[in-house]
């Protein structure tokens, strides 16, 4: 079986800055990967390229049989809505839309909205009674759960989470972790950038970056 994600000799430069170079690894479908490394090591850059938000300078990135570097802008847009579910450190919900509408927004960009399904996604993250609340009326942890529901709604091939618990306290972190765990058990492929050893230990493998290079791939210590 071909891996879901293949990264080969990936290089990304921002002018003089080499954010990534010589990075190669593969991710099997259903795997949970933790991307770790010190600040500035290129974790976000890697996630953005995998998510079709940024172009690689050179190298090959193939996701679900599609070579990201070759896609046109229009195809990238399609790719993002079809294959990727994003979760960000800053949650990034639309402030004037309710929790339910924020989830439906992703449906809308993907194809058509289905309010029932959106409500069901929010129920899965434990927010069934907060459907009509605006982001400002939700706690950070709750907002991140809305973001996870939004990431899941279009059944993406790949869930990309960039420090999803970076802005949360321990209690909320635990809730999010539990959710990620459930998603993993349900067969989702997850790449999560994290500084947290706890999350790193829950993942199947840890991809460790240092100065834009792949330092090592380790197995969690359980």
């Amino acid at each position, binding site marked *: 079986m071909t891996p879901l994600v293949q990264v080969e000799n990936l290089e990304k430069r921002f002018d003089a800055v080499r954010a990534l170079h010589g990075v190669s690894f593969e991710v099997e479908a259903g795997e949970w990967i933790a991307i770790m490394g010190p600040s500035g090591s290129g974790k976000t850059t890697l996630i953005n390229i995998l998510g079709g938000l940024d172009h690689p300078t050179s190298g090959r990135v193939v996701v679900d049989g599609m070579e990201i570097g070759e896609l046109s802008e229009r195809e990238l847009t399609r790719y*993002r809505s079809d294959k990727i579910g994003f979760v960000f450190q800053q949650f990034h919900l639309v402030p004037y839309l309710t929790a339910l509408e924020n989830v439906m927004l992703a449906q*809308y960009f993907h194809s058509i909205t289905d309010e029932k399904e959106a409500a069901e996604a929010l129920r899965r993250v434990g927010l069934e009674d907060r459907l009509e609340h605006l982001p400002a009326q939700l706690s950070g942890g709750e907002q991140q759960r809305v973001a996870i529901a939004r990431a899941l709604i279009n059944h993406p091939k790949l869930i990309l989470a960039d420090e999803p618990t970076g802005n949360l306290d321990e209690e909320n972190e635990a809730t999010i972790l539990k959710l990620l765990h459930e998603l993993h058990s349900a067969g989702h492929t997850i790449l999560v950038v994290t500084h947290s050893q706890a999350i790193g230990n829950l993942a199947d493998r840890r991809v460790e970056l240092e100065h834009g290079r792949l330092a090592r791939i380790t197995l969690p210590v359980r």
Partner: protein
Amino acid sequence: MFFRIVSDSFARKPRRKALTAAALALGMAVATATLEVALDVGDRLAREFRSLGANLLVTPATDTLPLEIGGVDYRPVDAGAYLPEGELGKLKTIFWRNNIVGFAPFLDVPVEIASPSARGNQVGGAGAHDTAREMLIGTWYSHSVDVPDGSKFVTGVSSTDPWWHVDGRWFSDGAEETLIGAGLAQRKNLRVGDTLTVRSGERAHALAITGIVSTGGREDNAILAPLKVAQDLAGHPNRYRRLLVSALTKPADAFSERDPSKMTPAEYDRWYCSPYIASISHQMQQELPGIEVRAIRQVAEGEGRILTRVGSLMWLVTFAALFAAALAVGATSATTVLERRSEIGLMKALGASRRTVSAFFIAEQLLLALVGGIAGYAIGLELARILGIGIFGMAPTVRWILFPIVLVLAGVVALLGSLMPLERASRVDPAPVLRGE
């Protein structure tokens, strides 16, 4: 979902939205008003000249052939027939008296003028003023006529030719004052405030120039003076030679053209009681024997030009107002895009295409245009009313067709104004935005 998002988003930043809508409303108000007026100018031209402008010319029935050169009657003052001024009041006693909007008698006298010697040739020596023959037109500006029923009727050029343009002020009918035609004034270097001496034979008048008149007609090269002055110079007190009457009339039709002497009494009654030019002329002739009445349709070039100029000015103002509104919209929407960069970046990260992002933006702008357009139209109607009263003396007809046009204009302005911000919005790169830059 689209509308849900647009309406949710529309409720945000009400202050800025209100500002944009206000800019649009203002632009649309001016556009509505000026368009109303500009469109009305054409209509009004026709109607105005028919209803207010002179449309009947009265001359003595037995007159010598006029010796007219360039519209000026050059017959000697003692040739030809004259009409008595004193009978003019009877015009307001005919059956259709209320349709007689106004009238102005005219008496032309060739005069010699002496230019003020203060200016012109400085050294010239003795008798340094040059003399020349010019035409003096005597008429009423706003004269009170005694009507036989005891009432008074104030009329004159002010009601037959209200669009004559005067720099300065009109003469008063009883004073030794005069208006100089613009062409003549330029030729003879005459100015408001000068005193002009006019001479005919033994008689002379020193007239104070109160204004410069431009009509686009023969008056531009003549001296316009109170009828009394002309009568005195001509030696024909209380006489006039031509009378312009402006009467509200019904357009001619087959019936109006028929010869009243061959009508049945019933037909005659009906004809008599319809305000046709023919029947009004007929009634005038009954009151003022010895006159001949001719219908004239004169939309003098100059008059038309002035109103046409008003019209084109209106178009210019419309354009300027729309342009200003577009600029204002552009400024506010640029701020909006800047502010909402992160939101736009997020939408793109979630898979929104450029077109989808643009559509949200356009929908919001159009919604603003709708609000601004409706408000602007309402304000504009009121503005048009005020403008119309200022220009025509009455409010322009409300044209409902302008409403959709104004809405479309508002939309176009809102979109044109936000074209650049829109382009920027659709090009927002999600990666840096999400990184929090």
